[in-house]
């Protein structure tokens, strides 16, 4: 019976996907979705999917019942309708649609034409999992398989000629007992770690951080769809680097100078200690406004990259967020040092609208 509505549900989902795809650029640049992320799905507001009708505006009022004097408030428009923020003007009924993260990544992949990532062969590690799909002649009583045990005993009695159809009593012996048992299932598991690094020196303002936040959301979404397990780590730096949690990462603002190499060093330490590169796909992302303290530190950075980081990671991504203070020199240095290197992906993000293009650059190489 239920299958009847499935066609309609599928059609509805198709339409939703179409709308999301059409407005993907808008969603990608305004970061609205980030706050709507649950564990497995993202709740997306779609204003235009209901059937428009001739109807009264929402502010007509009505009749209610309860306590209160004339002039007392009985609530605001949109109360109890569950829309996140008050829309423009009264009466905007926004439909919230839940889309799974996987589905969102799929839409994004199709729209941006992102290639699927080929994980490096020897970096696959094998995860072992126990699955109860086997029957064994020994085991604990709690796992006894009664039907199998009965069948076994029946077989034995029939073949021994002790089975009497008029009095079908089956008496299992010890050797008839069968138990549920497990088998080790090995499955190659591909894990990835993203190390986000961000410059939090005075020249990175809130607008720049918001861009990084939006980018990080989409990068997470895509890479999570490509790997079985995804971990994210966060490093902020000014003249010194330290590891922080996600919230701190996006809200900290310091004022000191900038030594980019400090972050790269910490990142390498993290990788060497916790994420052996034979087993992990590693993605360091660095966002900065391109201002570094000194030329010598920049040289340190290049050396760290060439000698230490690049051989171990899938790709090193550098996003330069334009700010009015930064000189923006760092990206040029990187370009000079690694003109041909596929593993170094550079992107310049001028404003919010460039987020989509920049994500395409980062993820479009399929590394």
């Amino acid at each position, binding site marked *: *019976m*239920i299958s*009847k*509505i499935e*066609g*309609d*549900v*599928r*059609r*509805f*989902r*198709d*339409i939703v996907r179409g709308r999301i795809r059409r407005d993907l650029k808008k969603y990608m640049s305004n970061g609205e979705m980030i706050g709507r992320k649950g564990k497995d799905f993202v709740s997306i507001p779609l204003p235009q*999917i209901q*059937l*428009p*009708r*001739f*109807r*009264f*505006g*929402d*502010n*007509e*009022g*009505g*009749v*209610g*019942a*309860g*306590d*209160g*004097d*004339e*002039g*007392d*408030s*009985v*609530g*605001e*428009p949109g*109360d109890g309708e569950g829309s996140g923020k008050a829309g423009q003007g*009264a*009466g905007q009924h926004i*439909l919230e649609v*839940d889309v799974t993260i996987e589905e969102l990544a799929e839409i994004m992949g199709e729209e941006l034409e992102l290639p699927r990532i080929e994980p490096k062969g020897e970096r696959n590690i094998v995860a072992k999992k126990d699955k109860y799909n086997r029957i064994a002649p020994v085991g604990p009583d709690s796992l006894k398989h009664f039907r199998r045990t009965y069948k076994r005993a029946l077989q034995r009695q029939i073949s021994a000629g002790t089975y009497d159809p008029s009095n079908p009593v089956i008496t299992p012996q010890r050797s008839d007992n069968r138990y549920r048992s497990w088998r080790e299932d090995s499955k190659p598991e591909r894990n990835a770690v993203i190390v986000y690094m961000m410059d939090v020196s005075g020249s990175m303002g809130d607008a720049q951080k918001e861009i990084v936040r939006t980018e990080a959301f989409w990068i997470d979404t895509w890479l999570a769809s490509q790997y079985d397990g995804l971990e994210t780590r966060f490093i902020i730096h000014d003249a010194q680097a330290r590891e922080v949690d996600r919230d701190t990462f996006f809200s900290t603002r310091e004022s000191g100078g900038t030594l980019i190499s400090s972050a790269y060093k910490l990142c390498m330490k993290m990788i060497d200690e916790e994420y052996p590169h034979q087993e992990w796909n590693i993605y360091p992302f660095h966002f900065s406004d391109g201002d570094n303290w000194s030329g010598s530190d920049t040289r340190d950075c290049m050396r760290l990259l060439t000698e230490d980081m690049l051989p171990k990671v899938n790709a090193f991504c550098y996003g330069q967020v334009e700010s009015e203070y930064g000189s923006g020199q760092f990206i040029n240095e990187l370009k000079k040092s690694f003109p041909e290197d596929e593993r170094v992906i550079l992107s310049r993000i001028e404003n919010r609208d460039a987020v989509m293009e920049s994500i395409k650059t980062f993820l479009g190489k399929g590394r």
Partner: protein
Amino acid sequence: MDHSQFTQRFRQGLSEDLKRMQDEVEAVAKKAGLDFFPVVFEMVKPEEMSMLAAYGGFPQRYPHWRFGMEYEQIHKSYSYGLSKIYEMVINTDPCTAYLMNVNHLTDQKLVMAHVYGHCDFFKNNMWFGGTNRKMLDQMANHAARIRRWIDRLGTERVEAFIDACLSVDNLIDIHAGAIQRQPTGRNDLREQIRERARAGETPELPDAKNFKFDVDHSYMDEYINPKDEVLARREAALEATLKPGKVPEKPERGVLGFILEHAPLHDWEADILGIIRAEALYFAPQAQTKIMNEGWATFWHTKLMTEKLAHANEIVQYAESTSGTTAMNPRQLNPYKLGLELFRDIEMRWDTGRHGREFDACDDMEAKRTWFVDERGGLEKVFGVRQVYNDVQFVDAFLTEDFCRRQGFFAYGYDKKSKQFLIESRQFEEIKQKLLTQLTNFGQPMLEVVDSNFDNRGELLLAHRHTGADLQMDWAETALGNLSRLWKRPVHAETQLGGRPVRLSHDGEKPSRTFLDRKESEKSPKKET
């Protein structure tokens, strides 16, 4: 096949104790005086209940994404524990009702009693008199027809057309089944005269008597109705009759029906539009009698449960479920609650003689409070009321000031300054007026076709009968665009916006607005941003 044989045959899905329960409830309901179609209960799973709710109660509907959307919303809301559908019943003969298999047994009993109330209402309320009681089959036919069009023309094309139809399916004449507003064909005197004129005959002049004013005294006649004057009026009327008139002659409320008759639709388009219109008309009486229907069913389930059906150990469960369905939200009138209380109030008033001129004229509050005339006509009265009233009439006739005060009703409005809804008044007249306005035309704005050849360009002009509340403009403009898909020419709708008369137009591509109170010189269609 009589009643009991029928129910025996058709309720295979129920377990033995539920069958026994149905027998018990049915017997009690019948004894209480309810008169219903045979009822077939079906036991469904929560997903099925959500699906049926999305389908408006019918197991077969045409394919459309809207049902999928509604299913997702209903089922999500159920899964999160935000809402629960106890029962659903559809207006057919035999009456089909669904029970949900996860519900408590006491709730099933309550629901059965409730369903018999609904079923009595469907059978006896006159507003349902014109509905098709074989709608299960009809809906399945509609589904099959639309599927066939989809097979032939493709999902996208048919779906886009259905979208356009649905977007204006509230523009129906809810009384279309009961009366004929526009005289058609041979019934129309004017049409007869025209026909004779076309045939080359000299049409007879209509009877001179029709053009005279009434006079009380015959000697005044020649002064009030001078001969020349009457003759001139007669001729003018004939001339007006012979001239090809505006279509429609009088404003037409059934916009969909009008389009069906006059727009250049393809076969498939006309078929689909007809289906959407028929379904909208089928569902209209339910929207027209929401308060009464739910009130009646609740009135009876509470009565039957507390007086006859509920055992002592079921009372708590019963009370919890009933208080849930009759709870009031400060900003929304609960039709269950309002209807229930009104029916109870009517019963009480007609039992104790608190009605009629003598009672109304009495201004001694103490005497009114303790008023008692042993009439015992309450039950008879409520049965009479459920037979002939709809919501508007029901509220108009029986919502009394005393009742309003007891229920703590207030009227509220939107305050632009504080951006909040504020309680405006506890005055009885204002509350009643507001409530009646909300119920008129089942809460939908009333738009009528006034001209099908607007501006002499074959464009459709609608007029909105403005009753105080503005239309929601963005939706109205999009809906107008959908209307132009059906009409295949630009369409216009005259309404008001913030107290100014405005004409919304849609040429099929983009909407525009013209304020009608501007001077000719500054008139320029304002583009929609």
